[in-house]
């Protein structure tokens, strides 16, 4: 009896220890790839400076993503590294919470409020548009719903949150996720180019990236590729967008259950809380503490740097988990619908950001 109790008590902790050990190789790979990106950026900057060469600074973000992409699509990621590499999203969320230290709560409310306003407008337009083109391309209605949720709110997390709520197929969810990931990878390289060609300010570009790029990791990277300040704003805009995930998923769940094609929702407040991304609260708490002077100035600098290190692991993970071969297998129709939707959303949000910059003075 005593042995049975001991075994039952120890089993979870030894399981946890084994899981932690399993994460180490992948974490080391994330750190190595991210640090290699930082090392390349600094080496190029030092070389061009010492040789008086004018060369645009290519952020470590791009190098880390490219190195990750090369590894993932040539040698592939051996099984031993996979659990640790999958933690990139954990580092993203921890990094976002710590980034709260770089915002005064007033800025969060100002920019976050503008973001929410623009998101609400963009969501309404993009849902209507996605359903229209989904029908035109004869996609299954639930696949169109997933693509609309993924492209207007929060990428993969939103699709994962919505899938059980609207009783969508696994196949539909994997199509939608693949399309969103492929489009996210493309936006990483196109958004900074467009931003520079339109001479967008850091704030306007960051807001645009945060509103238009779907996945939080890619939105953060697309912002950081432009500038540090743009990256900060992109994270804030994307976080505001993420906060709406529960409402949109609830709306879709109610729609599909009213048609008898999904289970009914009982307690709507509990549903909203379950779907609400908790890291948004952590971000607001750290921002509040920074605003009331809980941290001294050097401590704020340390928190900002901790956030940068967490993002470094995230950007390495973005490259390492993007398998171009897997994305190519998913068929062209969801991708085309997603792509048309993305271009539409990118244009609409660009127009909204231009308007907001003009009238609301970002």
């Amino acid at each position, binding site marked *: 009896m005593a042995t049975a109790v001991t075994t039952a008590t120890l089993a979870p902790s030894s399981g946890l220890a084994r899981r932690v050990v399993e994460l180490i190789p992948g974490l080391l790979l994330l750190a190595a790839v991210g640090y290699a990106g930082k090392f390349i950026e600094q080496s190029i900057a030092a070389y061009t400076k010492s040789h008086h060469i004018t060369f645009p600074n290519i952020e470590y973000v791009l190098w880390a993503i490219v190195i990750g992409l090369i590894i993932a699509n040539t040698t592939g990621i051996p099984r031993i590294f996979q659990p640790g590499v999958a933690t990139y999203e954990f580092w993203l969320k921890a990094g976002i919470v710590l980034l709260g230290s770089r915002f005064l709560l007033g800025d969060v409310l100002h920019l976050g409020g503008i973001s929410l306003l623009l998101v609400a407008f963009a969501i309404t337009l993009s849902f209507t548009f996605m359903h229209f083109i989904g029908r035109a391309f004869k996609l299954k209605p639930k696949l169109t719903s997933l693509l609309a949720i993924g492209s207007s709110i929060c990428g993969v997390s939103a699709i994962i949150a919505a899938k*059980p709520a609207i009783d969508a197929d696994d196949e539909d969810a994997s199509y939608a996720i693949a399309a969103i990931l492929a489009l996210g990878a493309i936006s990483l390289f196109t958004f900074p180019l467009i931003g520079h060609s339109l001479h967008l300010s850091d704030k306007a570009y960051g807001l645009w990236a945060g509103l238009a790029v779907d996945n939080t990791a890619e939105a953060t990277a697309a912002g950081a590729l432009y500038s540090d300040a743009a990256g900060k704003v992109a994270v804030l805009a994307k976080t505001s967008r993420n906060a709406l995930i529960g409402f949109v998923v609830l709306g879709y769940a109610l729609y599909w259950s009213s048609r008898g094609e999904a289970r009914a929702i009982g307690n709507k407040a509990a549903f909203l809380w379950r779907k609400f991304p*908790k*890291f948004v609260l952590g971000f607001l708490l750290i921002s509040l*503490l920074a605003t009331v002077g809980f*941290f001294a100035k050097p*401590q704020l600098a*340390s928190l900002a740097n901790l956030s940068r*290190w967490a993002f470094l692991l995230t950007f390495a993970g973005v490259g390492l988990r993007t398998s171009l071969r897997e994305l190519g297998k998913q068929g062209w129709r969801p991708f085309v619908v997603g792509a048309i939707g993305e271009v539409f959303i990118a244009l609409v949000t660009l127009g909204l950001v231009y308007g907001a910059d003009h009238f609301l003075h970002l």
Partner: protein
Amino acid sequence: MSESTAAPPRRGLSLDVYAVTLALALALLVRLNLIPPIKW
């Protein structure tokens, strides 16, 4: 229709909670000067 009994996305939820816990713990360590200044 019965109420949704589908398992909530526990992985996503616990991931958020763990990430927030780690970030707040780090912020506290920084506040109490229990870790050296972090450089970039």
